[in-house]
């Protein structure tokens, strides 16, 4: 038995066997061979096993996730059946007298180069990823190093990984993936956000050596406390099975709040909305009684795709969300790509400081074609529900004016084309300190503001939220953060605008009392936090919270003092 500590990232308790998701070592050396036909036989054997494997994966993916997800494996099989490619590998082995690993890699590298050079053709460039994946698979069989396939998981597991990418999680089958433990990131890292929207318990920022967890070890991951126990004793297993049952019971009790309107004990009605990242998340949002969508991140359209999403593709997605929300407010954020999100089909240079670099609205204004396509899709979708649009990473008034201007041009074009367009409320995501400080000026230009605390806090504190070494500086309750948030909310209210929040802080049970006191109008959070937040707000008297908020921003000098004030003010309702 071994106990570890990490950061609690997604509520719930998982007990299952460990499944290590690691990158295998597929390095090899160029070797001269004497018997080419033996080498070719070895190659074909590896290809045959790879194809069999791919057919199994394709079948499983089709059954568990659907035909779209299975499509990519079909393409992999097609690559391995390519007569021209096989001919080239064969002749490389025969003519150059080299080993199969080297010959295969040389030929596929050639294709990858051709595909990567096709700059005008994003979806083909993305194909180079497929070729690389297939090459890896064949190499793994040539070298006898097993490859790890999340799609092949067919029993209940806890994923143990250094970090998770969206393409990893796309292959997860929710029935089998019970929990996630990773040693990267904090509560706001992408793996953490993804596990919350999938409602899978997760511990991130694992403090310890992940390699100490072996495949098949029984692991307990407590996503509410950050505790990880490897090969627990029977007593521990019982204890956590009981905790798991308690957690489920609490959850079903909260279900009673699903159809209630959010209300404080003295009758104030802030809205509790959901943050969603994909259409799949929408189900969870509705399931948990979201009163709106406070943040629809549109990046998945760009990331889960092998080409830039077309206007029609986007339009369909936006329309679906608006229709499924039946007239409830939906805020869609224009693409926040660049920076940490690498898109294979879009040439974004690597940067030393991606979070201070070329991303979000900065990229949108620089690549107007991509931006216009998205705005047109949004404008067209506006006819199907209650749509607001917000721009991410706005820093200056000029950026906002430019973005609004482009939107207006597209609106006029559509109206001329006789396409129905409804009025859309325009807002900004306040996440750059410069915009936060100037909130009163921005108020003249927008219909609402939404505070993006994840980035705002890391920019105020100058601490990378994904870096474990400085994660202690990620302090949502720091008085500096709270003062700036209050400044934004006050600026909105002074100008008769609503103030929203869509960062993780909006669903933070410790922060909510203060935010209620500041008069925040909408709390947008992961679906899994909605019901407990609604239950919490119901017990709060907003007038008492006003006193608390004022105390926190005027009298506290540290995070700790703030949390002490909060405890004091909410003691009687616990």
């Amino acid at each position: 038995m071994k106990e570890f500590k990490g950061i609690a990232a997604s509520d719930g308790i998982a007990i299952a066997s460990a499944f290590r998701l690691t990158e295998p070592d597929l390095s090899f050396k160029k070797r001269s061979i004497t018997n080419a036909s033996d080498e070719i036989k070895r190659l074909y054997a590896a290809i045959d096993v790879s194809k069999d494997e791919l057919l199994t994966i394709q079948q499983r993916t089709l059954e568990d996730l659907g035909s779209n997800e299975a499509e990519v494996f079909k393409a992999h099989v097609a690559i391995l059946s390519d007569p021209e490619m096989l001919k080239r590998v064969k002749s490389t082995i025969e003519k150059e007298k080299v080993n199969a690993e080297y010959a295969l890699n040389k030929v596929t590298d050639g294709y990858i180069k051709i595909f990567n050079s096709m700059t005008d053709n994003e979806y083909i460039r993305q194909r180079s990823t497929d070729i690389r994946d297939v090459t890896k698979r064949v190499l793994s069989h040539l070298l006898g190093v097993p490859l790890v396939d999340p799609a092949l998981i067919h029993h209940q597991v806890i994923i143990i990984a250094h970090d998770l990418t969206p393409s990893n999680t796309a292959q997860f089958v929710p029935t089998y993936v019970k929990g996630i433990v990773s040693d990267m990131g904090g509560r706001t890292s992408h793996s953490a956000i993804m596990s919350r929207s999938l409602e899978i318990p997760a511990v991130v920022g694992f403090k310890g050596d992940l390699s100490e967890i072996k495949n098949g070890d029984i692991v307990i991951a407590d996503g509410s406390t950050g505790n990880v126990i490897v090969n627990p004793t029977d007593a521990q297993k019982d204890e956590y099975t009981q905790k798991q049952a308690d957690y489920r019971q609490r959850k079903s009790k909260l279900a009673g709040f699903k159809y209630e309107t959010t209300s404080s004990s003295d009758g104030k009605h802030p809205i509790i909305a959901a943050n969603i990242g994909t259409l799949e998340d929408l189900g969870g949002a509705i399931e948990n009684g979201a009163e709106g969508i406070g943040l629809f991140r549109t990046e998945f359209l760009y990331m889960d795709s092998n080409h830039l999403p077309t206007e029609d593709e986007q339009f369909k997605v936006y329309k679906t969300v608006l229709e499924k929300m039946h007239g409830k407010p939906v805020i869609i954020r224009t693409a926040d790509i660049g920076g940490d999100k690498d898109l294979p089909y879009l040439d974004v240079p690597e940067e030393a400081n991606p979070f201070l670099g070329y991303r979000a609205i900065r990229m949108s204004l620089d690549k107007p074609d991509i931006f216009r396509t998205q705005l047109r899709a949004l404008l067209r979708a506006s006819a199907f529900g209650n749509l607001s649009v917000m721009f991410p990473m706005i820093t200056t008034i000029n950026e906002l004016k430019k973005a609004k201007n482009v939107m207006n041009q597209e609106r006029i074009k559509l109206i001329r084309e006789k396409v129905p367009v409804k009025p859309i409320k325009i807002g900004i995501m306040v996440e750059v300190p410069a915009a936060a400080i100037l909130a009163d000026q921005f108020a003249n230009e927008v219909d609402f503001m939404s505070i993006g605390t994840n980035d705002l806090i890391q920019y105020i504190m100058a601490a990378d939220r994904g870096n474990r070494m400085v994660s202690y500086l990620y302090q949502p309750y720091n008085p500096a953060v709270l003062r700036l948030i209050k400044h934004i909310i006050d600026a909105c209210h002074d100008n008769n605008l609503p103030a929203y929040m869509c960062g993780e802080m909006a669903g933070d049970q410790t922060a909510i009392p203060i935010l209620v006191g500041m008069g925040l109008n909408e709390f947008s959070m992961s679906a899994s936090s909605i019901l407990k937040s609604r239950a919490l707000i119901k017990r709060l008297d907003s007038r008492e919270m006003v006193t608390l908020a004022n105390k926190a921003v005027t009298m506290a000098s540290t995070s700790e003092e703030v949390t002490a004030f909060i405890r004091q003010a909410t003691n009687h309702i616990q």
Partner: protein
Amino acid sequence: MEKRQYNIIAETGIHARPATLLVQTASKFNSDITLEYQEKSVNLKSIMGVMSLGVGQSAAVTITADGDDEKEAIDAISETMKAEGLTE
């Protein structure tokens, strides 16, 4: 030898899924089948060849089949193109 010309109308050209299906269809026949686009010609049974042409929207392509089942091959390929929305 059978030869036919097509105009690609699909917004994203011949991309992954239709390309895979075209190759699958072509591979069912004995004939040698080639796809020609902008004076480059590739084996239609080779997915990487087809992809490397990067056929985009409103491209004009020519498909040629040569062999004992050339007629059936061209018909089947035309059908796949249509079913995948590549041509009208």
